């Protein structure tokens, strides 16, 4: 009689929590006394992926550091919607300076803490994709190169959303933004441009680089906690869908992030000292159309024959990611496959 050991729960480790799990198996977000780093009353849009991603990451960082942590924010949505004077939604020590200097300010905070002998206080720098891959990039690269003891988190919503959805270095090909309108022979953002910030970070051979999405809470919390086990420069790149800029339904935020991962368009992995050490396997593979059709920024692709060719091109990008990072298991994920859990993560 084929019997599995009883370790199966209704929702495995995919859900936020479960009454059948022991306390140490539950996520930070399932706890009644989580920090709520970013509290109610903030002015982010309905269904904001960035607000969600920031709370996920910072609550996990607060637990990993026993609540001894300072956050440095670059300019962007996250800063604007959380701190209109005199309000603040932050329930953690938090500082904002300029758009482009957050990594440098974080370096300075870390240096100050070291000077005061407070090496127990950890520093997190954070910003959107504009502040990270474009405007703040020199400071970020310098922080990496000096291996300053900072975890820098980029909440990637793939454009300058705060100022009206302008293209950034992280905007994907074919996406419509205010500065890459869906007109002309090649509507939307061009192919072949933009920066892959996680791979650039890896090229600095810093101790730890990882990607995550708001759809994979357990994975995201694991990566924050893992990052805090290192000293030196660390980089976490989190995909956070933006209902306003992407033209998606507010309730679909997590669904879209999940599809970004399951199509292969956004590979989720972690790297140590420049080498990839683990990837999150695709559990339910989906074609890129499933991801694209939920977002108005890609609506033009579904209207013309040229659009179909562009979709095929995006599919090839996804397939390349799948091959490059080994996102698919060779054997099919048949019945009996154990749920993905952080405990069973393969390490090399």
């Amino acid at each position, binding site marked *: 009689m084929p019997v*599995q050991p*009883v370790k*199966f729960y*209704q*929702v495995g480790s995919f859900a936020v*929590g479960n009454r059948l799990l022991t306390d140490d198996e539950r996520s930070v977000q399932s706890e009644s006394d989580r920090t709520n780093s970013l509290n109610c*009353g903030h002015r982010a849009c309905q*269904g904001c992926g960035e607000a*969600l991603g920031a709370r996920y990451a910072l609550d996990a960082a607060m637990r990993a550091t026993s609540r001894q942590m300072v956050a440095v924010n670059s300019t962007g949505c996250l800063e604007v919607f959380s701190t209109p004077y005199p309000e603040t939604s932050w329930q953690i020590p938090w500082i904002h300076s300029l758009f482009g200097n957050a990594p440098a300010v974080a370096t300075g905070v870390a240096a100050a803490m070291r000077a005061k002998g407070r090496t127990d206080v950890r520093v997190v720098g954070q910003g959107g994709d504009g502040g990270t891959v474009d405007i703040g990039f020199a400071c970020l690269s310098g922080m990496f190169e000096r291996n300053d003891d900072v975890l820098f988190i980029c909440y990637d919503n793939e454009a300058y959303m705060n100022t009206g959805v302008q293209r950034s270095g992280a905007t994907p090909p074919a996406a419509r933004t205010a500065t890459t309108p869906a007109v002309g022979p090649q509507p939307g953002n061009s192919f072949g441009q933009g920066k892959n910030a996680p791979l650039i970070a890896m090229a600095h051979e810093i101790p730890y680089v990882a990607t995550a999405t708001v759809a994979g809470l357990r994975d995201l919390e694991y990566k924050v906690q893992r990052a805090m086990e290192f000293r030196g420069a660390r980089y976490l790149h989190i995909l956070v869908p933006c209902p306003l800029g992407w033209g998606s339904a507010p309730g679909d935020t997590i*669904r879209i992030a999940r599809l970004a991962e399951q199509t292969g368009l956004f590979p989720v992995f972690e790297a140590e000292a420049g080498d990839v050490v683990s990837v999150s396997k695709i559990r339910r593979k989906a074609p890129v159309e499933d991801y694209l059709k939920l977002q108005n920024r890609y609506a033009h692709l579904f209207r013309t024959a040229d659009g179909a060719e562009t979709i095929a091109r995006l599919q090839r990008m996804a397939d390349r990611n799948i091959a490059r990072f080994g996102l698919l298991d060779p054997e099919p994920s048949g019945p009996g496959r154990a749920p993905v859990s952080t405990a069973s993560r393969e390490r090399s």
Partner: protein
Amino acid sequence: MDRPFAITLNPGSSLANKTGSWRTERPVYVDLLPPCNHACPAGENIQQWLYRAEDGGYESAWRQIMADNPLPAVMGRVCYRPCETACNRGQLDEAVGINSVERFLGDEAIKRGWTVPVTAADSGKKVLVVGAGPSGLSAAYHLRLLGHRVTVRDQAPQPGGMMRYGIPAYRLPRPVLDAEIGRILAMGITFEQGKVTDIEKAMADGGFDAAFLAVGAQHGRRAYIPAGDSAKILDAVTLLHETADGDPPQLGRRVAVYGGGNTAMDAARTARRLGATDAVVVYRRTRDRMPAHDVEVEEAADEGVRMMWLSTITRADEGKLVIEKMRLDATGFPQPTGEFTELAADTVVLALGQESELSLLDVVPGITISDGVVQVGTGLMTGRPGIFAGGDMVPAERTVTVGIGHGKKAARSIDAFLREGVQDGNGRTCANAATELAEPRVAGFDRLNTWYYSDAPATIRPQLDAARRISSFDEVTGGLDESTALFEARRCLSCGNCFECDNCYGVCPDNAVIKLGPGQRYQIDLDYCKGCGICVAECPCGAIDMIPERT
């Protein structure tokens, strides 16, 4: 306030900004009817007892079953599992083995000696239950729990009805049946052997305030088959009854069973166990039109029972039958073809359906009998106030589970009749009528977010190998042990009912879901909920609705 150096402002907050005013729709927690509960003829709250079993609360789970069904160990063996057919998990991998878990809980209760106390005050009313089958016993149990004094009368020496005299022991071992019936009778229910020939007289003689009739359908339907003098023909009900009494008839080595229902399968499998080397089921239509349930047909075939489709018996002689081939016409009705073959058979067993013996109602005014069954209202009251009927003798599918459901329903109607004098016979004014009449909202598969459920196969019940089955009346299907039962219970998706996975609490970008603590579920903080709907989209079990705000 004493502030640190160079700090001029007090620590701020954004709580003054009540973002709930942005909202045009709001999330609302709901409890929908899971498809399993909806499909259960006995009205069990399956999702709830699986939920209780998931953390090892087997006694609590068993008590939840007992609220609706006093025979879980029996049902865990003989029910045809409409719940598993309806189970949403069937569209994800395989349906939850609800029936196996029920059997495990039922067996656990027998092993541990759990009982249900009667806590209701004595109502002073007396109810006569005629027939000690599943329907009668279920009614007696529920009436007793409601505080009434109950007498069950059956013409057989032992209670159980078709569970004892119709269902073979290899499907329902008698110690299990005896244990569950014994537990019901021990609640203070009187069992008497005796035939009720006139229900009015029986009620008057015993001073009964109401009666529930559940005499079943005991008589095998006959068909005219031209037969030689020495042809041996008997009906399946008799075969099964005499086998249950330990005095099986001599069948010979070659047995033909005529009919295509579950009783035909039971008869053929019983014949195999009584020594028939060749048991053939002769049925005039095709397999897909057979009334027998698939699992019965498969198990019969596994045991070497042969099937002859599109065939009728036109003549029986000693040792052989004349079979006419049939074909289905455009309406699916079998028509003779004029082609004949012979089939060697020592005995013909007729399994052509059963009829109820209803002579006890002959002198009762106001009762309508049509198509051989008693007509009842939705509350199971007959045309004679105070007399209720259920089980195989009223128009319904004839299964043990339906019978148990009728018993519960009738008990509630009788209670309403005795306490409030509800007279209209359809139970509309009884306490639960409003909820029963409202169209229930069933939690369909499209409401679920199945991403959050792990993939897991159903645990396969161990089966005795076919060879051993044929030589004995040992139980064919084995049960689950504790670890596999727990595993199976945890495969439940909890469709339409919150099981506290914390998803809504975790995925809200505005911290607008309040976690109320174990068993208390969650509450939406409408001061800050912007109505984005992520909690609704990410709820695994579809237990949150989005409704428009009033303008």
